[in-house]
């Protein structure tokens, strides 16, 4: 039983990271109908930025964290301006390819700048553990869970209660109509990329004590975030986090109870099952057009 709870908590913590990356997908998808295959790589880059600020320049953890988030928000806007904006309105496939290319580029550049070793960031959470009875919970995992809950709530409120959030949802439904209604669509898209890069950075920094930062971490985790996003329904913010947590728990349980090898494929088997049985996911609004 104790093993089960331990596995559950580490699964939830891992799942929250998937959820945070999936949140990035969902934000961009919600606002622009674009699926950003470089989301995991934005997370990786955010982790490296934080490492530069905290590990190399010796800044305070929170200052470095904020600096990395701000820098990555700017980088997200830059990426949107250079890669995505010229091809908005073209078939989705072009944009997917463009973001795959962007991901390749970021991975190689990060490898060139920061090398290929695993890097570690010293965080205030990396040492302590919380003991409840005989249950031992590490602070770094709890911090991931808490941060995910806070971010998810904030983003949910932002999207559903603020004017800017409504404008984002409107421009995802129909860019042209949103533009006619006076919404500055280009700026909205730009802001959404900034937010999604910032969320990715938060994921990267929180993740750093758990899996370390290296140039391929984004690819590995980004691919795991797809099942999370699909399971939650591709356009839903709470869905992304719930999906991420479920995928994390499934992966963790499969690794503990099933034979070796199941751990890596379990998320994708779940993904295929979801796509076959309930393509709209748990929280999604998938409208199927009847002919």
């Amino acid at each position, binding site marked *: 039983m104790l093993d089960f709870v331990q596995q559950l908590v580490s699964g939830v913590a891992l799942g929250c990271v998937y959820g945070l990356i999936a949140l990035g997908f969902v934000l961009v998808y919600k606002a622009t109908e674009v699926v950003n295959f470089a989301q995991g790589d934005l997370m990786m880059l955010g982790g490296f930025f934080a490492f530069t600020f905290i590990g190399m320049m010796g800044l305070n953890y929170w200052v470095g964290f904020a600096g990395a988030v701000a820098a990555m928000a700017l980088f997200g806007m830059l990426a949107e301006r250079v890669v995505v904006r010229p091809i908005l309105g073209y078939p989705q*496939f072009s944009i997917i390819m463009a973001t795959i290319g962007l991901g390749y*580029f*970021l991975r*190689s550049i990060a490898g060139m700048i920061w090398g290929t070793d695993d890097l570690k960031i010293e965080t205030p959470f990396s040492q302590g553990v919380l003991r409840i009875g005989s249950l031992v919970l590490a602070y770094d995992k709890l911090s991931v869970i808490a941060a995910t809950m806070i971010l998810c709530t904030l983003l949910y409120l932002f999207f559903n209660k603020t004017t800017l959030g409504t404008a984002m949802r409107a421009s995802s439904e129909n860019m042209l109509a949103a533009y006619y209604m006076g919404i500055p669509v280009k700026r909205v898209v730009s802001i959404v990329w900034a937010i999604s890069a910032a969320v990715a950075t938060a994921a990267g920094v929180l993740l750093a004590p758990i899996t370390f930062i290296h140039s391929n971490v984004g690819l590995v985790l980004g691919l795991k975030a797809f099942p999370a996003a699909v399971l939650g329904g591709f356009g839903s913010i709470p869905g992304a986090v719930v999906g991420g947590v479920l995928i994390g728990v499934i992966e963790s349980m499969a690794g503990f109870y099933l034979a070796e090898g199941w751990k890596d494929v379990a998320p994708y088997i779940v993904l295929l099952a979801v796509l076959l049985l309930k393509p709209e996911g748990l929280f999604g609004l998938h409208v199927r057009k009847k002919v």
Partner: protein
Amino acid sequence: MRFLFKTDYEDDIKLFPHSGYFVSYGILIALLLIAPYMLSSYLMSQLVFVCIYATVGVALLILTGFTGQASLGHAAFLAIGAYTAAYLQKYNVPFPVYFLAAGGLTGIIGAMVGFPALRLTGIYLVIATISFALIVEEILARWESVTNGNEGMRVKTLSLLGVTVPRDSPTFYYLCLAVLVLTIVGTLNLLRSPTGRAFVAIRDSETAARSMGVNVALYKVKSFAISAAITGFAGVLFAHKLSFISPEMFTLQLSIEFIIVILIGGTFSLHGAVLGAIFIVMIDPFLTYLKDDMPGIIAGIAATFGAGPATAGNIQSKVAAFASLNGLKGAIYGIIIVLFVLFEPLGLYGRWLKIKLFFQLFPLYKRATFKRQKIYVKSERNR
């Protein structure tokens, strides 16, 4: 300038619209046939890879370019073909049999992937095919009794009708070339048949195709099966060319390379698959060249512009250090993909058509002829 007058349907679907085609393709075939006697063995080896990649590119074009079903899982089909060949070879099955068996099995698996894919479009299909490829990769690594796991499988030298064909012999090159040419001709024939027309109709509008009486489900599955089968054939050749296969050769990276092949070549014509394959395969020798010669050349240029020998040497070592950086290939891939998507969406073949039209219509060519239309209104989510 040549004007083609089409007076009936047969004129419209001719494989060779006019006699010029015989001349140009005849010259091309002749050059390809004498290539083994003209080129170095390294370039010959690259040419074999061009043939294999182009075959996969044609397969992917049938599915992605002409039926509109994006797939990022073709490395898995290639792997299934390669492993089928390697496994059957252990039991001394002759080449023609396991060649066909590999294609057949991959085709059946392709159809099995096609059925669930019927309900998926766009991004969901891409994600589903990625998952399929990742699962296949894991199975290859774990099913040790058949695939020998991560240690990989050795592929014996090909023997065709009692004659051994080493992987770097001209005969093996001719075999790959023959497979490529047969695939291209077969695909051209397929695309001008009712089946091919149905594929294109599905790509352009599923709704319209269905209302014209096209059985969308059937043709999508057919497209998946045909595309997978061709990739399976290519997989057999791939296995023989490498003479050793292991799961880490068939990763997502390879699937993305195949997509880059058709993206760079152009997704609307079979020429694109060949041009893209040449591009992708030749990037490696080009990078090697860059690594070996570029520092010297740049230092030479710097010297002619008045830099002293010390500065020139400094520049040379810096450029050399840059060129041998680890991730340079990935960065160049990334930049190439982004640049093609942004500035040359029709690919290399599209560029060729533009240049040709420029000279045909001189001075009347206008850029807007090839302009794509942007659609801001339609949300693919609700399609």
